[in-house]
């Protein structure tokens, strides 16, 4: 008996079975397997590792301990001593992500509104340009700003040669800059600082903000605003009562998305942030790939960061649905 005969007989015996294994089912099964293998398994692995135990002076071992989670909230020496170092880092993650995402959306808002009023061809050119700028990686952007803010090649040099530094010294403001860490005795300095970090992070997500806002803005019906104007409302009243409410949802959505994206930002923070403003993302890396090989604690930090981000997303979603219900 040949193989083809076998198949034929099987097909005759159970036509239902053959119909069920259609190409569509195979495709679904393959895609599900891909999702499970490449998304869910690594995810579960991180969660499982977070219950592992670090062996001082070596690597780590599988275990089932909650010590890593406890350490995140009170430090390794608890109960003898308490430290909120890791909560502080989580706070810094939120601090930078909130400010940078809001700043990016606020500056992208007027730009995108103006963009939608341009001619179609001009809009297309701008959009292509902005899309192209997305291809620059975080490393590249940070490197660029690093040069722009450096003493001999960037803004501080410009300040010095134009005499601005000397002027600052003459009027006495230079001392204030030194006090807040934006100058050394020789010249102004812009890095490391919160300013440089937020600037780079906003710059990083700014093209995303424009691209996410653009579809909603381009669908705005100009006749609404025109009607309001003809009924006597001034320009500001129109923006406040007609335009902004119409784009509130995409604004919220974009801010939330950029916020979550920036929570995991690594390069800008590790290069530009001062040591007291380092974030959870940097701490995770230093634990997992750094010299101490503490993958369990790094994983626990990652899980907590993920939970925090999810809570924020749920909260944002709740606000949105409440606003829509009204």
């Amino acid at each position, binding site marked *: 008996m040949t193989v083809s005969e076998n198949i034929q007989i099987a097909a005759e015996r159970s036509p239902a079975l053959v119909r069920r294994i259609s190409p569509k089912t195979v495709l679904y099964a393959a895609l599900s397997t891909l999702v499970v293998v490449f998304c869910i398994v690594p995810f579960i692995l991180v969660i499982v590792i977070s219950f592992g135990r*670090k062996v001082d002076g070596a690597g780590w071992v599988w275990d089932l301990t909650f010590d890593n989670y406890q350490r995140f909230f009170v430090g390794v020496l608890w109960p003898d001593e308490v430290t909120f170092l890791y909560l502080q880092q989580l706070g810094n993650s939120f601090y930078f992500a909130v400010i940078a995402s809001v700043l990016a959306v606020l500056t992208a808002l007027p730009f995108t509104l103006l963009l939608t009023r341009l001619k179609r061809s001009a809009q297309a050119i701008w959009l292509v340009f902005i899309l192209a700028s997305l291809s620059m990686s975080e490393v590249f952007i940070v490197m660029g700003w690093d040069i722009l803010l450096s003493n001999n090649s960037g803004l501080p040099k410009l300040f010095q040669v134009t005499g601005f530094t000397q002027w600052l010294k003459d009027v006495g403001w230079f001392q204030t800059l030194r006090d807040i860490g934006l100058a050394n005795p*020789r010249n102004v300095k812009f890095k490391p600082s919160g300013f440089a970090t937020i600037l780079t992070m906003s710059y990083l997500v700014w093209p995303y903000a424009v691209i996410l806002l653009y579809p909603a803005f381009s669908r705005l019906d100009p006749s609404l605003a025109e009607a309001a104007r003809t009924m006597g409302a001034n320009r500001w009243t129109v923006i406040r009562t007609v335009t902004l409410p119409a784009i509130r949802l995409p604004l919220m959505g974009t801010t939330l998305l950029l916020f979550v994206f920036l929570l995991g930002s690594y390069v800008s923070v*590790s290069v530009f942030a*001062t040591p*007291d403003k380092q974030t959870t993302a940097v701490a995770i890396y230093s634990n997992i*790939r750094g010299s101490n*090989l503490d993958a369990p604690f790094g994983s626990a930090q990652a899980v907590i960061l993920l939970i925090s981000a999810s809570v924020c997303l749920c909260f944002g979603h709740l606000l949105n649905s409440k606003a829509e219900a009204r």
Partner: protein
Amino acid sequence: MARMNRRTLLKTGAGIGGLAAAGSVIGTPLIAQSRSLKVGSYGGYFENSFKEFVYPEFTAATGITVESVTQPNSADWLVTMQQAVPAGSIPTDISLYGRDSMIKASRIGGLIAPLDISAIPKAENLDSYFVFDGPEGPQGVGAMSWFTSMVINPNEVETPGSWTEFWDTEKFEASLGLSNVHSSGLLDITAATFFDGEETMMSNEGILAILDKIRELKPNVTLWWNAESQMEQGMKNGDVIGGQYYLDVANLMAADGFPIKATFPKEGNLQDYGSWCLTTGSEKSAEAAEFMNFSSDPATQALMSRKIGTAPLVDKAMTDLTDEEFAFVSGSPSIKPAYEAYLDNETFIKESWDKMLAES
């Protein structure tokens, strides 16, 4: 199946025998030529110098060709190895480890294989400290040594005679670049400068006292660098005018005309060293032994000092290095890292260090 009779069997046998005989004649030089070894080193200028100057000498001496592999100089490599060794796809036959990573690798187990020291007679040239005895026997042979040195910008500041001057805010306000990794030597340097050195590092109280001292240094530090390149750029750009940096790279930068000067203050500079370790599962243990033997030769040590800028692990008297060449890569006094403290008290030191840095 074709039936096999005595005649065909004999014929086939003769054929195979003939082939084997031919192979043994033609094949011998081929096998000798194809002896090869995958050796890891730290990439960039460091690895290029190895490829250009050291490996060719080794191939000329032994006929073994070297395939160079880029690896990081940190525990990062252990993570890679932990995944690669069980999977049976080892990236190198020999890797280069710092002492702390090597001890970690030996304690994790199954990453670095024991060595047959009798096959590496020239390891005798090294101080016995540099042949690492792990739990499974000898597991590492010293390769080269490097200093983390005090560096300053000679155009901006006079050369300090002691590390204590870094604490002088009049001189260095918001101007220094130091490493932000707990085990990168600032603890050891501070311990040697203000306390009893390694002894102070051995207790929690000692660590906290040292950290208190480093806390006083914070207003003078503008750059807590993470990657070597950040400090390099910082010195070149004038963002920092002093700090800690690798002696060999600093001297190379100075030779290229950048405003950097490496100096040995009276307390000394931090000296660490790298070891060659055989990867578990490698089938090239004989070739690896030959490579380690070659590396332990005083002539090779001197070659590395000249071409790569590392300090030799053998007595200067055994090499033909001139005083000037030696001063370029080495100096005294040397501060040894408190490896034991870093390994056994790792979690406490890291968290206390991070806490100190995170205070505003």
